[in-house]
Structures are given as C-alpha cells and as structure tokens.
C-alpha cells in the first residue's frame, strides 16, 4: 500500500512539474464556446461554426471590414437588372479550391443547386436550414466559365447581403462529391486558411493557404478549442492556454482590461435583445401598458451594471449597426417610473399579474436570468406582479415560437441578423403570426408596418429602402410591441502578443490579418 502511494505521489509530481507551456508563435489558439456542429457552410446554423468557416470559405461578395456593406470577394463585379430579378456576377479568375479544383461558374451553380434543388444529386448531404435566405432564387445559370447569373422569382432586396453571409459561400464540388455526408467534417473552400484536422471535442485545426489569391494569412496555424464553460474559458485565458477568446462574460471584461498582458476588443453588431409583450390578450393588449413597461425598466442599469457596459441601450427593432438604415432620431424610452405609473392609471388596466418566460441561455441571449430578474424587479416597482418561468433554450423556443397565447404575457428574445429586413420581417408583421409560419409570437399587428416592410423588401434603391426602415423604427417604437432593451457589443480578449485582430460587425472572426509574436 505504501509503495503504491509513493508511486502515485511521484507520478503526480512528475506530471505536475513542468510549467504549462505557452502556445508556440505562429500558432494561434482560439477559445470557442462549443464544439462545432458541422463545417459544411450551407448546413451550419451556429455563429460558433461560422467563426471557423469564414476563414476557410469565401462567397461571391463579403462585408467590407468593420462594416455591413458588401464588397467584391470571389466575384469582381456584378450587375442587377432594373426589375431587381436578375443578378449577374463576373468571377475572379485563377482561384483554386484547397483541393486543387478550379473555382468557376460551375462551382457557384453547384453550391446553390445543392442547397436549393431537391433533385440535385447532393441535396441529400443536407438539410440546409438557412437555404430560405435564397428561396427566391429560381435559377442559377452558368453564362460562361467566369460569369454566373441568378434569376429571382420576386424582387428581394436583401439578396446581396445574404450572399455575403456564411450560407452563401462557395464549396468545392469535387470535395462534396468525394466526401458526401462527411463534407461537413472535411470542408474545402477557397479561403485564406485550409482545413487540416478535426479531433472531436478537442480541436479543429486550420493552416495557412499558401496559394491564396489575396494577401496570405499572418499565422501558420490556427487551433480552435471548444470550451463550453465560460469560467473555464476565462481560466484558460488567464493561464495561457488560449490566445484569443470570444464572448467574454461581462464581469470578466473589466478584469482583463486592467491587465496589460491582455487586449480587450469590442464592436457593435446587428444584435437586438428585447422582451416581447403579448399584444393579443392580458394587460399588454393595451399599448399604454406596453409603453408603461418600456418606461418602467431601467435599461441604463441593465447595460451598464448587469451587462457591465458590454451592450448599449436599444431604441427600436433595428440596431444601429445597420448605419445606413438606422434612424438616429428615435430615442430610447427613458427610465421614468412615474411616467409608467401615470400611463398605467390612464389605461385603467387593473389586473397587472403577468407571466414572464425567461431562458437559461441561448444564442445571443447574454445573461438572460439576471436580466429577467432585474426587469421583473423594475416592473414590480411600478405595480406589475411578475411571475418568472425559466426554461432551457430548446424548451424555451418550443414554448415561445408557437405563440404566447394562453401561456405567457412576456418573453425574452434576441436576434443577430445581417440585414435590417430580417428581424422585423420575421417578427413584426401580421403575416408573421405563429399560425402563419413566422416568429411574431406576441401578435403585434400594424397595417402600416406590414406595408412598409413588404415595400422595402422589393425596393432595389438603397436610399428609398433605408427611408422605409427609418419610418418602421419610429412607428414600432411608439407602438411598443416589445420592451426594447439592449444592443450587444460583441467582445473578445487576446493576449498582448496578438496583433491585427479586429471584431467584425457580422459576428464573424476574420483571422487573415492576425499575426502573433
């Protein structure tokens, strides 16, 4: 027994003695929030996967760095027909996929047909959950080797921005043919990094693509490590196990900011965090009560104290990250409990008992429980009686998406989108009520808003489109279908020897310019 113990002690000492090594230069280790689900760009739906994908794949267009405006990528230029139905792209020549397959119009057609055409031989490699972004495409035509044409059934203004998202990137046809279902674990694109290895639950490794058509990447290798627990991620950052971490818990940001060995990054993004209010029944059926709720909640405290300044107060359904379509004139509801009480009196609504669905976590939900609890306290201070029910994310969606009717009066929700159209179109139109197949789970309805949104979707003139969205913001703000709470500023931490890293407004993690000493 004693020998055994001594042996164990020696083993422990031996194992513990070497100080944990820093990651080598030229190798960048990224702390991810979870194991990727798939690296097939058309199959993937998670921001966590996109952070890897965006470095391996490219689309015809991309968002210019630091903006949400499109610029050329694999296409060098494009034209749009006057009726907004035909998009013609001229492709970059001399580009090859990582497996040597040449990039051309056929590859583009293959990519979109695979996702949209149910009779395509590789449609089976799906499902392609986000293909509805391109649902209006009726045909993709190869005009010549380097020209491709998309024909739309109806005008669809967000089409170009959707092409810049990760769902619109081009995959290597020969790799899809070779790997079939397994393409998601063997991705091949044209991006600045090529895929090397995916060790399940441990790491995904990509390396510099030396044949890249643009400037080659600054580091040789990038390792993506899944670390699901936020505390553990922070601990790994502190102990030198990773070089960059994303989605830093708000309370830890200040700690890193005070430490000169780390660099803190933040960037606004197209994110909205709100509480939907059931406009069909209960106290929130009265717009005055909904406005009262907006006055009652102290949003400044929520973003500055609960979220530690990692978010800004939100004014309406369109986040300021869409600078071109954002209405600066719309001011957030101020924190004014007296005003709230006055409005409640005015409304004459007596029964202020409400049920509040809160989730425990979920994409873009920030700190849902503390935020929900703080909102509950604020509402109770002006006379509401709020009962919180918490659900795990999947259950939460299953409860909220079919509509709140008969179950709840309010529910937390958050969206990250890349076009100002997406969120209002899916959640504010009358035609988006749950029974119609949309996400307007709280039954807001305003004919003017419906009309403006439909019009903006068809409009190809960006100026006219922008004006419509600005009007939508004002109307929706006044109708108060939600409590507008926060626009998240995404954040990240890197060690001080990482340079050239910037966060992008589309929540992607662009690593081609990053270097590390």
């Amino acid at each position, binding site marked *: 027994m004693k020998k055994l113990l001594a042996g164990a002690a020696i083993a422990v000492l031996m*194992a513990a003695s070497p100080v944990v090594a820093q990651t080598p230069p030229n190798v960048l280790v990224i702390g991810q929030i979870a194991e990727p689900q798939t690296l097939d760009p058309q199959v993937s739906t998670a921001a966590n996967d996109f952070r890897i994908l965006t470095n391996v794949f490219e689309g015809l267009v991309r968002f210019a760095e630091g903006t949400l405006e499109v610029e050329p990528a694999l296409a060098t230029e494009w034209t749009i027909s006057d009726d907004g139905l035909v998009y013609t792209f001229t492709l970059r020549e001399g580009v090859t996929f990582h497996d040597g397959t040449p990039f051309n119009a056929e590859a583009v057609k293959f990519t979109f047909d695979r996702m949209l055409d149910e009779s395509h031989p590789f449609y089976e490699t799906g499902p392609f959950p986000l293909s509805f972004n391109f649902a209006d495409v009726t045909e993709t035509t190869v005009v010549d080797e380097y020209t491709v044409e998309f024909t739309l059934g109806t005008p669809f203004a967000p089409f170009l921005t959707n092409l810049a998202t990760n769902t619109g990137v081009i995959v290597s046809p020969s790799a899809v043919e070779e790997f079939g279902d397994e393409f998601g674990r063997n991705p091949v694109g044209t991006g600045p990094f090529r895929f090397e290895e995916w060790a399940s639950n441990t790491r995904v490794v990509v390396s510099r693509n030396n044949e890249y058509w643009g400037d080659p990447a600054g580091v040789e290798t990038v390792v993506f490590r*899944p670390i699901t627990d936020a505390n553990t991620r922070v601990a790994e950052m502190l102990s030198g196990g990773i070089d960059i971490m994303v989605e830093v818990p708000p309370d830890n940001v200040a700690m890193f900011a005070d430490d000169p060995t780390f660099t803190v990054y933040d960037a606004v993004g197209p994110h909205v965090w709100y509480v939907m209010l059931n406009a069909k029944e209960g106290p929130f059926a009265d717009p005055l009560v909904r406005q009262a709720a907006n006055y009652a909640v102290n949003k400044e405290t929520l973003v500055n104290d609960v979220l530690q300044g990692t978010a800004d107060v939100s004014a309406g359904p369109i986040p300021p990250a869409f600078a071109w379509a954002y209405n600066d004139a719309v001011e957030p509801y101020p924190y004014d409990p007296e005003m709230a009480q006055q409005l409640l009196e005015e409304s004459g609504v007596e029964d202020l008992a409400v049920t509040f669905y809160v989730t425990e976590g979920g994409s873009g939900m920030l700190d849902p429980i503390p935020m929900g609890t703080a909102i509950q306290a604020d509402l109770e201070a002006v006379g509401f009686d709020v009962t919180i029910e918490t659900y795990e994310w*999947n259950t939460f969606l299953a409860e909220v*998406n079919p509509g709140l009717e008969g179950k709840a009066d309010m529910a937390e929700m958050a969206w990250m989108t890349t076009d100002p159209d997406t969120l209002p179109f899916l959640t504010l139109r009358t035609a988006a009520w749950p029974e119609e197949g949309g996400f307007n789970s709280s039954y807001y309805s305003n004919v003017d808003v419906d009309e403006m949104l439909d019009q903006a979707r068809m409009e190809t003139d960006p100026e006219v489109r922008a004006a419509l969205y600005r009007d939508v913001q004002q109307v929706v703000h006044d109708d108060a279908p939600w409590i507008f709470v926060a626009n998240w500023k995404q954040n990240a931490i890197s060690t001080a020897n990482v340079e050239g890293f910037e966060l992008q407004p589309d929540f992607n993690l662009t690593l081609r310019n990053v270097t590390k000493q």
Partner: protein
Amino acid sequence: MGGYILKRLAYAVPVIIGLSIIVFGIMAAIPGSTALAILGSFATPENVERVNRELGLDLPIWQQYFVWVGNILQGDFGHSYILRRPVLDEILERFSATLILAGASLILCSIFGILAGVVSAVRQFGWTDRIVTFFVLIGISTPAFWLGLLFILIFAVQLRVLPASGMYAVYGGGDLPDLLRHLILPAVTLAIVATGVIARLTRAAMLEVLRQDYVRTARAKGLDERKVIYRHAFKAALVSIIPVIGIQAGFVMGGAVYIETVFQWPGIGAMLVNAISTRDIILVQGGVLLVATTYVLINLLTDVAQALLDPRLKT
C-alpha cells in the same frame, strides 16, 4: 460461476430494453426538437417540417423507435442528427475519455477512502480519526463542480502548475505524461465525494469486523496487531467495502457530468447533456445504453469480486 454470470447478464436485458423505451418516450415528451436545435431562431414551421423530413424525424415516435431497434439489431447505432457522425464513433470516443477519468478517480477514491477509513477505525477517537473525519465531512459536504473551479483557480491560474482544462494539450503533447497532467485536477475533484463515502463505510465496516469472534481468535493465537488488523479484519471488511465501491463507481460516472463540463473533459456525461439539449434522440439512446450497460457490468464485477473474496458466496 459462469452460469451465474450468464443469468445476471440475462437479467440485464429487460432493464436495457425498458430503458431504451423510456428514453425514447421521455425524449418525445420533452418540448423542443432537433429541428429547433438546428434552426434556433429560424425555426419557422416550414423550416422545421423540412428539416424533420430530411432527418427522418417526421415519423411517429414509435415508428422511429422500431427503425432504431431494427438498425441496432444490425449493429448500426445510427447517425447523430446534430453531430452528423456515426453515433458509435462518438459514444466510444467519449466513453473512453469518461472511462479514463472515472477509472482514475475510482482508483484514487478507493485507495484514499479505504486507507482513511482503516486508519480512522484503528485510531478510533484519536487525532488521526478526527482529522480524517473532518476531511471526509468536507468532502461529502461540498459541491464538486464548485470545488473544481476552485482547483482551476489555484492550480492553473495562480500557480500555473497544471492545465485548466481539456484532455490533451492542443498543440504538441498527446503522450501519457500529457494525459496525466490533464487528468489530475478533474480526477481528484471527482474522487473527493466518493473518497468521503468510502472512508466512512470502511471505518464502520472495520469497526464491525474488529468485534468479530474470529478477530479475537487471531489475537488469541498471539498474532501481532498489524496482522490482526490488516490480514484478518481488513480482508473481512473488504467484503462489505466492495459493493460500496461498486455503487460509488456508478456515482462517479454520474458526477462526471458536472466535472466534464467544468474541466472541458470530452466525456460522455457532457455529451449527454448536450445531446439532450439538442434533442438528439439517437445519440442520447446510444449514450444511455452504453452507460446503463457499464452500470450492469460494474454491478456484476462487484458481485464477482465479492464472491472471489468470500468463498461462502460462491454458488
């Protein structure tokens, strides 16, 4: 003995079949769906329906079950909907990680638990006994996941002597010392509660055995006290300690859920939590069956070990 083992295995069959039905039923009863997990905010009824159709999830739940059973009988555990890889690959990989972690902490808790229990029984009411009792109480009164975080804070962040998480270094490493280095913190954390339980029961078992007539016989023979305690009393106590270790083995596997999450250990506990939240029925099934089978085998192993130790139990 062989017949007995076969009989025990036969008993396990209905348990496992029953479990598989219950798991399917529960997974069907829980709100939410795989499609929701895939689509997230974009889960319109239309999209949900399309994804379900493409995954074969549009069948009634009992049909899905029989399809699954049919596949299992052909040795096919199916494909995970979310991970898009064969369930068998995933669970075996995950399970071996859990086995390493649980095995290491089972060894730790058996050695230290038994040692502490014996020492504190032999030195009953002495200072050693009190100190052991105190640490045992700390062990069984502290939530393990919280202790794990504390360990990370101390050993990985402050002292920087051990890695904070993971099973192997992401770059370089991959050898046995690397594994051991990563194993220490989670294995110790996981072992703490079980060590306490085993120590308490060992102490009680030793005290009970030390009162037995045959221990008095050993003394009457003039054996020295160490032989009396470690040869005569301990062997007899071991007969009742072994089932406790068996139960703890089950617990350690269960507790692994928390520890695997905290230490980012790529084990089956953390996988099951994920698979449940994404409603990945087939993966949950595979994982539960593997865990249940292990549980059955641990039970069997415990009984066999007990029978080997105690000739009276041989049938």
